[in-house]
């Protein structure tokens, strides 16, 4: 059997999907890691992006730190935190959150910075307070770009969450690392295909939501 038909057989066998080590379970774990990491990253990154966007202060620092954050190798962080804190999901979550923060901060900031000065001036001139201008004008106008940042971060995290398996936890990375260890190429491919499919599916869903939410917008 050639590789492709082996792969199809692997992906479609009922036994492969069921059980505590089946694809369904691994998929669930993968989504769980990704969702939690992106959520925590958003809770940290959104306020930072909104603050620097609204006040115009600290933009230089935040953008450079984001660039630095993007350059950090994820496996390196996992290993480093693992050495310090020992074996737990903590190193995985820390590295995934660190991966997601830059996209969210820079996109949120970019969205806020793109709100026209005239529009903000009008908001103030109409008698909005700083917070009213933020929530009623700036955030709604920045929303498409903020959403893009969240979408980007989510997809990056899904693609990278395979590293949970690197430190012996679950997720779809399990198939990749186990397959490599067992020299089982079919399993490696199966895992890779599943991760890619999940990332693409989530991206399409988020893009759909984006289009529905911002259907009245010019851009």
């Amino acid at each position, binding site marked *: 059997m050639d590789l492709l038909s082996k792969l199809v057989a692997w992906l479609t066998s009922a036994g492969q999907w069921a059980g505590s080590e089946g694809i369904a379970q691994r998929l669930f774990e993968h989504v769980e890691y990704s969702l939690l990491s992106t959520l925590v990253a958003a809770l940290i990154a959104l306020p930072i992006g909104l603050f620097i966007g609204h006040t115009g202060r600290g933009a230089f620092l935040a953008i450079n730190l984001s660039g630095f954050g993007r350059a950090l190798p994820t496996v390196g962080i996992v290993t480093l935190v693992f050495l310090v804190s020992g074996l737990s999901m903590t190193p995985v979550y820390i590295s995934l959150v660190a991966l997601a923060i830059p996209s969210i901060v820079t996109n949120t900031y970019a969205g806020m910075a793109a709100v026209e000065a*005239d529009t903000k*001036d*009008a*908001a103030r*001139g109409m*008698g909005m*307070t700083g917070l009213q201008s933020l929530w009623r004008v700036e955030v709604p106008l920045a929303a498409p770009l903020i959403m893009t940042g969240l979408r980007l971060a989510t997809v990056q995290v899904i693609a990278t969450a395979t590293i949970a398996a690197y430190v012996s936890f679950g997720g779809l990375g399990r198939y990749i690392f186990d397959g490599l260890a067992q020299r089982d190429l079919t399993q490696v491919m199966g895992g890779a295909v599943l991760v890619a499919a999940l990332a693409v599916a989530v991206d399409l869903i988020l893009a759909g939501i984006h289009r529905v939410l911002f259907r009245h*917008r010019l851009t």
Partner: protein
Amino acid sequence: MIRFESVTKRFANGTTAVDDLSVEFLEGGITVLVGSSGCGKTTTLRMINRLVDPTSGTVSLGGRDVRELPAAQLRRGIGYVIQQAGLFPHRTVLDNIATVPTLLGWGRRKARARAAELLEVVGLAAESGKRYPHQLSGGQQQRVGVARALAADPPVLLMDEPFGAVDPVVRTLLQDELIRLQAELRKTIVFVTHDIDEAVRLGDRIAIFRTGGHMVQIAPPAELLARPADDFVAGFLGAERGLKLLSLISLQDVPYEPIAAVRTTDTAAQARAEATGRWLLAVSPDGKPAGWLDVHALDGSDSIGQAALTPVRGLTDADSLLSALNETVSSPTGMAVRVDAAGVLVGASRDDVVHAHQRSLA
């Protein structure tokens, strides 16, 4: 109503935007602030609603220092219109107009009802309320900007080059609308522009600013044009200062006399019989001037409907002496054709009569 007392504004970079300004703006009138860019006119305007705070001196509104109220609360009581309208792109036209009423806590239904009412006031169709700003033309957006400023019925309106970004035809239209609205509403309006013609058209009083933040002169347009305070003001008013003055004088007191005319439905023979010279005024069947008819060009044709007419513009009593002068120059007979409010021919003023009236004013 709006009063500046020794107001100076120096920015952090050291430039003086407004230098020791003391002035009072008329209640219920339009005061236009003009000057080249960087002369402090916009800064002056923005000190009224505290988008800029003065370095020294006080600005008061209706006898109260503007610093007495929190800035946001003060601004909700002052209409504000800016260039490009500054509409909120994510809100419908109706919601844009309802901004200040909503901030004042009117409740959604009442705020929207008021917004719908204002659409009509500024001459927009009711359907446009459901649209988004980018779906409107520049002129329509500017109307929405004015409606939004009027929504909570503030006594004061600040307008910062509101018609600067639209083409000349639309600008004239918007100016006419503003004049019409102001005749009804009698707001205290402060209007910033760099266009002296706009200032002359709209202003009850015009304040001229010079670079460095000095107000050089404040006067009604006619007085300003007739007696500029110095060379700077005269220079700013331009070489056509005399003509601008004529644009402020109406034709009400300029006499006219009956004029012979044919209808465009008449025959060429009737036109020839009526003519005393080469040119004859033609009117449409409803009595409105249609054009000057060249009797010499009638050869061979039966009716005059087909003959080419030289365009004519009928002037009402509300039109200016400048437009009459223009007609006497551009019409082949030197006559300015006069019409009533409905546009129906009443007579014509000869060029010497128009000139004599203009000289009698000097």
